[in-house]
């Protein structure tokens, strides 16, 4: 379970997350929607400790992320994150991209890591691209590789930060399909997304972010289907 309690985050004088509270239960899919610059990416980065927070607390399965003694490298093994830019390690083949962290972080043997990597790459439909360098893949394939790379660590949580925003429109579908598959398998996920239809379809709950605070949170039918706040209505009008 991820427990976010009254989190504040500033960059210098600019406060971008202004007291956010929300929980994500095991097996739940929660989407975060909201305008550009509202602090969505920043909040995700705070969850796995890539960014620090000024106030409040974030706990992942009871572990205080921003406490002094927390071993962040260890915590991050359990939280996969996929970014907007697909971040392929260009000097490694697809297979090596996915094997790297299991080998270095989980200390698996070469053959164990390879088995895990092959399994995950097949899972995302890249079983025939193992020996290829990422430069030869389409954006959608690279993004699916990034998903497999995160899954190879057997994370308990997956965070997606606009995983399809940088893709050509015709490639969005294949990545969304992969994410849908994960949701159906019961993965606990937080999706930051501009794909409102997709969010409505896969999410258990949707949170609407505006200027660093959650304005509305609830079932997709409530927040997307029947929004109460004028800001939410305005935002949905602008993206649908």
């Amino acid at each position: 379970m991820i427990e976010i309690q009254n989190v504040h985050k500033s960059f210098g004088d600019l406060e971008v997350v202004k007291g956010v509270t929300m929980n994500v239960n095991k097996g739940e899919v929660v989407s975060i929607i909201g305008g550009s610059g509202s602090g969505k990416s920043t909040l995700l980065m705070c969850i796995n400790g890539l960014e620090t927070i000024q106030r409040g607390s974030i706990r992942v399965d009871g572990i205080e992320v921003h406490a002094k003694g927390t071993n962040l490298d260890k915590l991050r093994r359990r939280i996969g994150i996929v970014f907007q830019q697909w971040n392929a390690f260009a000097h490694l083949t697809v297979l090596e991209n996915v094997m790297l962290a299991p080998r270095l972080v989980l200390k698996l043997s070469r053959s164990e890591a390879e088995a895990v990597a092959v399994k995950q790459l097949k899972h995302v439909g890249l079983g025939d691209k193992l020996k290829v360098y990422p430069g030869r893949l389409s954006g959608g394939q690279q993004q699916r590789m990034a998903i497999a790379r995160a899954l190879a660590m057997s994370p308990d949580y997956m965070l997606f930060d606009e995983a399809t925003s940088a893709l050509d429109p015709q490639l969005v579908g294949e990545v969304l399909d992969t994410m849908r598959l994960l949701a159906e398998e019961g993965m606990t996920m937080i999706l930051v997304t501009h794909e409102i239809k997709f969010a409505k379809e896969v999410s258990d709950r949707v949170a609407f972010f505006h200027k660093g605070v959650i304005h509305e949170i609830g079932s997709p039918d409530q927040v997307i289907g029947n929004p109460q706040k004028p800001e939410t209505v305005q935002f949905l009008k602008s993206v649908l």
Partner: protein
Amino acid sequence: MFSTDLTSNDLIFLVQGAWVTIELTALAMLIGTVFGTLFGFVRASFPTASIPLAFVLDVFRSVPLLIQFVLLNSAKSIVGLKISPFTVGYVVLGVYAAALCTEIVRGGVLAVPKSLRLAARSLGLTSLQDTLHITLPIAARVAFPGWLNLMLAVMKDSALVTWIGIIELLRTAQQINTRINEPLFVFFIAGLFYYVVSWAVSQLGNQAERRLQND
């Protein structure tokens, strides 16, 4: 017909000179690459804290090599250090190469997108693992052409060690010329040596670069 007083012994002499040039270059590049990589990472990672380092390297970059050779060579006599001119030669060249290599490596490290490092860290890689397995290899691909150019520049600049009495390729050519007085021919051959070595290095470099680009 073309005739020359250049003997086969002279040619062997030239080859020995060329070998000294290659040795100097190799040793200088070894020093330059090791320290340049280290300093380049430091400069990229701690831009403010490493300003003093940048200043020192800047001095070594800007003072003409010839002055550096003569300075260290004289300083060593005054202090009474027992090191050979050859050592002075490759140390000075090595420090010079390190100063230039630092900038090349720094550029390479800064060219690695921050998001790539975040992706590595979010997989649970430690900062050191990220540096060794992600940042270093990707920065190396960016820095490689510059590094190769540096090597060729160092090889040419190594001719300056002749001023502190080391017999390398240029000096051997001068000595042979003093005896047979055929400057055009002798220096043509010496120039050819430099060219052939540079050419071979570039060829190897191009091949390595193609391998680095993975296709």
